């Protein structure tokens, strides 16, 4: 059983600038209004663990499961009877860079955690993608 929601939009930001936002711990809390803090080793590696703290909730441990520079990034958080994943991907199109953030829940209790946990996260995806790309553009303008 898989429960999945995603949000995609086009941007003129470069893959490098978006990748930098995805792999810099300090940028995560800037790009995600729900997040208070993120820590993980830089540069991140598949299998490396990190920690995220949402506002008003306990810290959660996560593990990177995919890191393809300029293409895709994913990490997962374990839930009882389910796995919560955050697939990020980007691809160049004729109309610009297409950036997708998704929330995916797999496992026997995915149907339970989808409405309980996934829906709220999914509602925040558009704002996060907009902030990631807006801040990537700002980084580009600043020459970072």
């Amino acid at each position, binding site marked *: 059983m898989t429960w999945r929601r*995603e949000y995609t939009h086009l941007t003129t930001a470069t893959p490098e600038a978006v990748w930098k936002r995805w792999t810099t711990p300090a940028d995560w809390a800037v790009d995600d209004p729900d997040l208070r803090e993120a820590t993980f080793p830089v540069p991140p590696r598949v299998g490396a663990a990190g920690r995220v703290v949402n506002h008003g909730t306990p810290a959660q441990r996560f593990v990177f499961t995919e890191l393809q520079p300029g293409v895709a990034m994913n990490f997962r958080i374990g839930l009882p009877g389910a796995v919560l994943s955050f697939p990020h991907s980007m691809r160049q199109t004729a*109309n610009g860079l297409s950036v997708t953030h998704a929330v995916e829940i797999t496992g026997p209790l995915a149907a339970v955690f989808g409405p309980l946990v996934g829906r709220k996260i999914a509602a925040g995806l558009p704002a996060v993608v907009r902030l990631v790309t807006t801040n990537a553009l700002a980084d580009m303008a600043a020459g970072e």
Partner: protein
Amino acid sequence: MTASPNAADRVPAAEVDVIVVGAGLSGLTAAHRLRQFGSTVAVFEAAPRVGGRVSSADVDGVHVDLGGTFVGPGQDRILALAEEVGVSRYPTYAAGRNVIRWRGERRRYRGTVPPMGASLLDVGRIQLTLDRLARTVPCGDPAAAPHAAEWDAESLGSWLRRSRASSAARDLIAIAARTTWGCEPDEISLLHALHYIHQAGGLSSMLDTEGGAQEEHFVEGSHEIALRLAASLGEALRLDAPVRRIETTEAGVRVSTSEEHVTARAVIVAVPPSQRTRIEFSPALPPVHAQMAQRWPAGVLSKAYAVYERPFWRDHDLSGQGLSDTGPAFITFDAGPAGPDAPGVLLGFVGGVYAREWDGLPEPERRARVLSSFADLFGPQALDAVGYIDQRWGAEPWVGGGPTAAPGPGAVVPYAAAVSAPVGPILWAGTETADRWTGFMDGAVRAGERAALDARRLLTSSSTDHEQTGAAR
């Protein structure tokens, strides 16, 4: 002889019956009617173009309205004015199904009610309640509503929470708020929202396409109405002429730009309330007027148009009308010209919180994001636009935002009267001063016509005063 620092001081003051400040639809209508009454006018417009909050552009050979676009039943004054100047209209394309992107899913539906399952009941409850409360707010005098102070003390957003509105109802009302006032529900006075709804004949009348305020648009464009009124004014219209000062004199008013002084018996100031602060009044306006101008800011609403070789959505039985809870374009319309072989045009609104971020982006990024929104609703073909243009009303220097003023909590009861109350020979126009369809083009025309009548009365009464004074001598 000492050279004057002001070019205006080097020429003698001209004299007319009435001066109009602002050549938007309201000011132009006022000037037009006054001339029909036989009065002489001078019209000063700060911008290099006429129209104010109506404007137009040509995109890949297709005409688009960048500002006020739609008209509907009950908007008698704009319809009459358009007919008078020979601008015709055609129905907004509404055949086929509408689309909603909601909670991560895309759905198609017919009619005006989106498919929201059980939430629909709550949406209906909120709409009925707002309509019921709105009917108790007297048009043109919101402070006289039975619960005026209580309703003005909170925002539309806080009322929604207090009324235990579902998240679907809150999000739908947020879409309506962004489109209508260019702001979030938390930013606008509940009393103002109710007054506005009543003035527009209810939420359905305000928001619907068929039978509502989006039912038709103009073949030649709404801006053409302003252009034709302006053409008839000839040299009485001055563009690029910001009014710096309005001085009340014994005989009436003296209005000054950097280039000239003009005297008149009355002045009609037809600019958005927040822009009134850019004019120096002598003597100063009563404090409540200056305070109102600070507390009635314009909303933030932008529009984006994408032009396609053909309206591909119609091939899929889609109307082009879409709603989205993600933005940046959160509501769309088919704004294509009439005709079987006409190109396709999608219009998207970007307002409130979305506009504040989107407005600051470079044009290629704004385009990419709007086309993404369109593709979310109508599929990947929406990315293949052959033309694109957007208009950020919040970036317009002499308008300051759009589509209309959005007073916050506490700003209506003490200040609503100052929006339209004359100060001696100083009269006010602009859509915010209308007692029906405020915020719409119809409100602008109504307000201009009312101000013209008020000015005419002032001219008549002052003529009578002069005659009586003369007779007494």
